């Protein structure tokens, strides 16, 4: 098969309007930042480079390898793109890839594209680059190991966020979709990790100049490290909890019920909007709260570090 749709691309119809628009807004902000960052720091050479790197990611996703029983592993590439090209260029590259997959192949919807870009392009860049950035000064073995962990985590994170979005849209029941999604992607992530590590080792061997410490450092600083670590920690703590013990999740939700107060408002946008299956509305808002807080935290750290840099530049 030439083009195998990846299981994370949400088609239209599976997310409701509110969730779709919410993620569109966050995606537009991040992509806007990425555009201003890349066009201010880089020359015209960058545009063909990113275009071809996007084609590379697209093509590399066709690389598969036999696993067992006729199935095969695939490659997603977000973490690799962010590590090699820097997080901002990585975001633009993944955005273009997901846009073309949605437009041309209907692999992922148009209205759901904001969420798809966020899950597979932005989060993977935050985690992939953020974690790798913490160890750029370490030796090769450590760096590759961390890159592998980052690749694995970014896959799992994308799956986690996808399940949450489906659940918040009232499309799936969390206690079913979450373990299923995470379970599958824990395995897919292993393939992703191996391919990312080996590809990085290859690049380092053949063109070490592309992965020089100073070069990676120039792509971004402390903000990414913090964001990468925070997001990763949340995922690491959250996903096993969520997938093995959905009741536990509910308990936490009840304990932290206060969070729901501030976040009820967006759901009133459409009057007849309901979150089905959830007599326990608190749970849905908690999760939305965690996701939202996480995203806001990331954004704040990033914007803060950018502002700081601008100031020191002046």
């Amino acid at each position, binding site marked *: 098969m*030439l083009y195998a749709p990846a299981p994370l691309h949400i088609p*239209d119809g599976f997310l409701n309007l509110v969730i779709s628009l919410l993620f569109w807004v966050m995606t537009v902000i991040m992509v806007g930042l990425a555009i201003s960052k890349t066009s201010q720091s880089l020359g015209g050479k960058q545009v063909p*480079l990113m*275009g*071809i790197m996007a*084609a*590379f990611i697209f093509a590399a996703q066709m690389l598969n*390898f036999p696993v067992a029983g006729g199935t095969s592993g695939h490659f997603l590439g977000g973490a690799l793109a962010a590590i090699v090209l820097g997080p901002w260029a990585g975001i633009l590259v993944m955005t273009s890839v997901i846009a073309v997959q949605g437009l*041309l192949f*209907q692999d992922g919807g148009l209205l759901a594209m904001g969420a798809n870009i966020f899950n597979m392009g932005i989060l993977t860049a935050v985690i992939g680059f953020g974690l790798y950035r913490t160890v750029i000064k370490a030796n090769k073995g450590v760096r590759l190991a961390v890159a592998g962990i980052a690749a694995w985590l970014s896959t799992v994170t994308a799956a986690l966020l996808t399940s949450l979005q489906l659940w918040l849209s009232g499309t799936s029941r969390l206690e079913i979709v979450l373990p299923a999604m995470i379970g599958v992607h824990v395995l897919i992530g292993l393939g992703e990790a191996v391919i990312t590590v080996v590809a990085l080792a290859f690049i380092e061997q053949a063109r070490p100049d592309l992965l020089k410490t100073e070069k990676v450092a120039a792509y971004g600083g402390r903000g990414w490290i913090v964001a990468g670590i925070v997001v990763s920690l949340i995922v690491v703590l959250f996903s096993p909890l969520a997938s093995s013990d959905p009741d536990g999740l509910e308990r936490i939700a009840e304990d932290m019920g206060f969070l729901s107060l501030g976040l009820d408002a967006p759901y009133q946008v459409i009057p007849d909007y309901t979150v089905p299956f959830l007599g326990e509305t608190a749970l849905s808002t908690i999760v939305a709260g965690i996701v939202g807080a996480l995203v806001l935290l990331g954004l704040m750290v990033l914007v803060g570090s950018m502002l700081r840099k601008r100031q020191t530049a002046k």
Partner: protein
Amino acid sequence: MHVDLFDRYSQGESPLHRLDPRVKVVVTILYIISNAVLPDGAWAAFGLSWVLVLVVNWVSELGIDYTFRRSFVALPFALAAVSAIFSPQGQPLTDWSVAGFSLAPTDFGLIRFGSILLRSWLSVQAAILLVAVTQFPDLIHAFEHLHVPAILTTIIAFLYRYLFVLTDEVMRLLRARTARSAALPGVKSGRNVVWRAKVTGNMAGQLFLRSYERSDQIYNAMLARGYQGQMRTLRAHIMTAFDWSLGALSFLFILLLQLVGRIA
């Protein structure tokens, strides 16, 4: 090798092929939003939406079942929505108990599940129609006119062009691997999964470097032809009265869909 299969554009001379791509993009997006906000169980509106798809299929001379035959790409994802059938809201139809979970399909759940599938199925068909009657370069220009930042549209234009070059390259790499994936009688071949994943990682690394180095060449080619930082184009898209009226007509029809969905 030809990866022409990638090109979803279908050659034609219908009025829809000639319609300004901006109109097509905007109407498609409105239609998909319309599907998203139609209430669950608005069967009449869903039916009418499908009629619209069929009519467009017919007008664009693609053959009435063109999108239907291609509309099942999102089907695997339906698995994710199956759990909606067991929604705790609504009346349970039977009572199944699986491993302590009470899993009962409910009437509300079934309606919800059906609506999700219909929405997705209709939206996919709209997207298929869009790319079947619009050349991809025109689509990119439309997004430019709709104020998608030039840097993104330019990246996407490059992506589209090099998609074909690089996927051909991947196909050839895969071929090379297949050609040497041999076995001897009585010996287990293929070693283990990790080794195979590692080989694939090497292929990804190869492909990356070749792509990276090729981008240098292309930048040189652009410089050689006077590129100074921004792309210029001759393709002026001008909205005609026909474009405006067809756009307005579609908009009205989508409003009608919403009305039907909410009254019925």
